[in-house]
């Protein structure tokens, strides 16, 4: 399986924690984006109306993931846009890591959507990326 995620019920009380898995960093980044989005809305409710290109640069993979998820939260507040399709590639050069993504989704429709909880921010609490037997894992806590 390319990617998956699961929520961790026991490591935070007032917020939401998850682990995202992927065969590659890009697949793990996709899983983390879906896990973050699924806190706020039901993924199946999102129609593919809008496509966007996103580019993010960071010094390392940890900061790249933090900024990637923070960007999704930012776009949600700024333009009310929420995404359920993520086509991601991650490249590395001597200056750090770069993520390029094509994302698909639409404006949140509170009347049609089954809403969840708003994500205020991505935290660095217990934040971790590791490679286990060739698979990538990220643990993330979202501030609710």
């Amino acid at each position, binding site marked *: 399986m390319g990617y998956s995620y699961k*929520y961790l*019920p*026991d490591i*935070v*009380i*007032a*917020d*939401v924690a998850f682990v995202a898995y992927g065969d590659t960093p890009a697949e793990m980044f996709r899983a983390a984006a879906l896990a973050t989005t699924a806190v*706020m*809305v039901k993924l199946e409710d999102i129609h593919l109306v809008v496509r966007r290109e996103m580019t993010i640069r960071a010094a390392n993979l940890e*900061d790249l993931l*933090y*900024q990637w998820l*923070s960007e999704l*939260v*930012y776009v*949600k*507040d*700024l333009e*009310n846009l*929420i995404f359920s399709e993520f086509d991601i590639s991650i490249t590395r050069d001597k200056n750090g890591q770069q993520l390029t993504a094509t994302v698909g989704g639409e*404006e*949140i429709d*509170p009347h049609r*959507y*089954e*809403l*969840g*909880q*708003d994500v*205020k*921010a*991505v*935290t*660095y*609490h*217990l*934040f971790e990326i590791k490679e286990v037997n060739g698979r990538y894992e990220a643990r993330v*806590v979202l*501030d*609710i």
Partner: protein
Amino acid sequence: MKLEKIGHGIWEIPVSEKQGMRVPARILSSDSLIQSLDQGVINQITNVATLPGIVRHALCMPDGHWGYGFPIGGVAAFDPDDGIISPGGIGFDINCGIRLLRTNITLDEAAPKMKELMDELFKAVPCGVGSKGLIRLDEKELKKALVDGVDWCMNQGYGSPGDPERIEEGGHIKGANPDNVSPKALKRGLQQLGTLGSGNHFLEIQVVKPNNVYDAESAAVFGLDRPNQITVMLHCGSRGFGHQIGTDYLQIFGKAMRKYGISTDDRELACAPFTSPEGQEYFSAMKCAANSAFANRQVITHRIRQAFATVFGKSDNELGMNVVYDVAHNIAKLENHNVDGRDRKILVHRKGATRAFGPGQKELPEIYRHVGQPVIVGGSMETGSFLLVGTDRAMHETFGSTLHGAGRTLSRSKAKKMVRGSELLKKMQGNGIVVRAASMAGLAEEAGLAYKNIVEVVEAVKDVGISRPVAQMLPIGCIKG
């Protein structure tokens, strides 16, 4: 770690218990609440005790629970000359806080109109994921609001003359400079003024029953002066604007830590010397967020007043909807305190904790100065909330601080497994609480069973003497984002 009871309601963890602790950590609690204290609180509050320039002790209030960086319920003061400032001691939701409004309406008048009132309020105060405010600002106007807070609202006509003095800091913290705020944060703030948010944020219609008034004299000073009086409580913060400032500065502070040679166990405890450029810029940006949160609660208050006027067909004067008080519970402020016999200016961080100044403090409005500061404590939406008053003892023990809520005991996912939103809605309506919610899942996550018993938590602060109960307010209407 060794947890030593050193006085009535006070437990201490000595500096010998963790390498790097500069001062002891103290937990304020009761004999029964301390039994259920999670290990995370002990770990986090002792981490706080290692931070440079910390004064006297790191404190956790009785409603404390595991958070990120500081525990929720954490209070710590730092020397402004050689101490630090930490966004993790404030939280992403800068100046999340609670405001209480009184009314002249009584339960008899409100009861037949509750559904109509809740529908009107649900329209007037946007909430939940993806909600937009009803006021649109351009960047220039937003910057004015960030600098002037509630004073900007008053100039725009969103308020009554008595409002500012009944807000902590007058709703306008001086020294807020939008130049220290990123363009991203400014853009994120443009359309969210007047929105409630989600999570544990709420707008509640409450009743003060005569048997729930514990100090009638103080209650009357605060405007709670008639049997079965209706009050309105709102809990929200600086919305995406403040969250973006937290996100931006967490990354800036990560780099600043390396620059200044500070290390911590937890990246969420990132900090910088208060006097450093990074420290001063964050403090100023934090003030912008604090002012935006005060303004947010002020705009919502304006909308609430309009909704009441529409539903009850009464004038402002007849409704008597004065602000009782507005408290911040995620903030850092420079305050003057007597520390071990010496008057000192210190930087007090409160994260999930409320200022609770005792009688006579010059920071309090004249109308309340002889009684002490009103402290507003939000309970779970099923159990009710409290109005307390600050004490002299709080000034001595906790840098004039106390609890902020009931304190969670169950995680969100566990709460959702134990109760369905639709069932909870029916149960609350059966108990006479009219509910309007943007999210059923969100409603379940905020069920009463996810929180400590607020009566027990309030008893704990009363016993230790850091605040005194004035009245309890019971919910009859609830809006959840």
